[in-house]
């Protein structure tokens, strides 16, 4: 381990990549949870892994954080080999898991002092470090409360603070805002942006399309253990095609009929909005969209609104996986 470098950067190795993975595989019995994933995350970037529940996001992240050994493939994190030098990887990373990795019986400060001591801060330095972290995360007043009495948002903040006892080279965040209310979620987003500005590479998993869209410079979409697309939010949207037709019906009862017509006419799966009465479908060309609209009108289906435009990330995800995104992501404010 290299103690002189604050970021755990070795003097040799890949200079630019924070994470570089080739063909990572993890199987559980017959299930190939991660089925050959390549990943390149440049330093200082917020990189999102987007996918539904059970896609293999957490398994992939646990492998990269040395918590689970890959069955095949290789990877380096901050230039250290995952399998050959797990200790060096651990010295360069921090992980905030999906479930609060805090000791509920201890106070917020005691949780941080415990970790500070494990990292090598002694006595007064450990306490000072903890108090700085508590202050930075707005938890000073709750410092002497037991974590069991914390709200969900406070736990999340303390959990992220616990990952910054040593400023890591790479910070892994597994579904950082799952289960948080909208305000707490915005707080966490603010923190993540702040950390990235300070130069920390962040790899986060999310099932919220809006979260990936808002935060990440690059997004990898994974499903069934495979990476099915990767790029910036703009690139993903462009790859799906810009000709997305959105229609809103005046009469919800005609939804099924309208969906059938659009699907037959445009030969792409139709996605319904959660609120109902709205349909989105890849149209290809404006001409095809026009003809489809004409057929809806001819069938006597009244439209309250229609538009052509860029797909939302949710629609991208739908086009890539053939599955609708998750319910909560729709409520998250994705553009229809």
């Amino acid at each position, binding site marked *: 381990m290299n103690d002189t470098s604050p970021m755990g950067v070795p003097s040799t190795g890949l200079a630019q990549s924070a994470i570089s993975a080739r063909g990572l595989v993890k199987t559980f019995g017959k299930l190939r949870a991660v089925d050959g994933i390549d990943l390149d995350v440049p330093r200082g970037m917020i990189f999102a892994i987007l996918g539904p529940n059970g896609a293999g996001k957490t398994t992939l992240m646990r492998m990269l954080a040395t918590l689970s050994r890959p069955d095949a493939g290789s990877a380096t994190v901050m230039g250290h080999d995952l399998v050959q030098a797990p200790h060096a990887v651990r010295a360069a990373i921090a992980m905030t898991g999906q479930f609060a990795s805090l000791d509920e019986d201890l106070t917020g400060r005691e949780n941080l002092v415990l970790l500070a001591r*494990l990292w090598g801060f002694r006595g007064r330095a450990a306490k000072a470090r903890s108090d700085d972290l508590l202050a930075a995360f707005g938890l000073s007043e709750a410092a002497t409360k037991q974590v069991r009495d914390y709200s969900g948002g406070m736990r999340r903040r303390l959990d992220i603070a616990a990952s910054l006892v040593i400023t890591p080279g790479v910070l892994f965040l597994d579904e950082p805002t799952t289960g948080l209310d909208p305000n707490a979620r915005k707080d966490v987003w603010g923190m993540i942006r702040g950390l990235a500005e300070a130069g920390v590479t962040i790899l986060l998993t999310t099932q919220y399309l809006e979260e990936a869209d808002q935060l990440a410079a690059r997004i990898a979409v994974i499903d069934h253990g495979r990476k099915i697309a990767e790029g910036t939010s703009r690139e993903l949207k462009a790859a799906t095609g810009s000709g997305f037709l959105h229609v809103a019906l005046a009469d919800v009862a005609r939804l099924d009929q309208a969906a059938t017509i659009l699907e037959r006419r445009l030969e792409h799966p139709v996605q319904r909005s959660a609120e109902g009465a709205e349909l989105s479908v890849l149209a290809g060309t404006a001409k095809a969209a026009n003809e489809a609209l004409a057929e809806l009108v001819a069938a006597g289906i009244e439209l309250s609104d229609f538009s052509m435009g860029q797909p939302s990330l949710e629609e991208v995800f739908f086009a890539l996986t053939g599955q609708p995104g998750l319910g909560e992501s729709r409520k998250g404010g994705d553009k229809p």
Partner: protein
Amino acid sequence: MIDSTSLQRLQSVARPKTPSALSNALVFGWRAVLKFKHVPEQLFDLVMTPIMFTLLFTFVFGGALAGSPGEYLQFFLPGILVQTVVFNAVYSGMGLSTDLGKGLFDRFRSLPIWSLSPFAGLMVGDILRHLIAASIILTIGLILGYRPEAGILGVLAAFAMLIAIGFGMGWVFIVLGLLIRTPTTVMTLGFTFLFPLVFASNIMVDPGTMPDWLRAIVEVNPVSLMTTALRGLMAGGATLGQVVLALIAPVALTAILAPTTLWLYLRR
């Protein structure tokens, strides 16, 4: 809320020197001590059963078993100390199972620390629990009229033996805690395994009146060997052979299960 100024301040602190394995283990020991401070009621669970056993056996069965409650207590007290320590080990397995379910150990495992140090900390907590529980039971015994004939040195030697027993048994439940996700299953399984071990021993009665086949089992039961040695240490007259026999099980359990623990923990 977090801003770039406070972040830069956080980042400006130099990374400290990598601590030693011993230092890691002591930090986890400190965690165990904090648990006593924040969850003192755990001691209630630990000492209530042995206190009830002591009172029940001494006053209800004591006269019938040994002629008088006083004589029985003299025989029974060292045994109940062994039973207390053996049963207490179950609780640390439950605690570990709970911790693992919460993702706390994922954080520990992602730190560059000695892999076994969290378990060393659990052991520190266990040993403290054993010492506190055993002291409470001994105090009650002394109030009821128990007299350790070997004096203070005998008691100290007996407590050292209890720590060794607790340490060995602790690994059994650490392994169970690692293998089983539900804490209550750890408890049920633990007591299912421990009840025959504790009752088919010489803790409560002299095996002289048991049928031959059972006596054969009781005489080689590690709990009996531990109890015999502890009686000897507290009453005086323990032989080296008795002490060695009592320590076989704890030493063997540690030798087999400590590496198993590490393997299971790293494999997860």
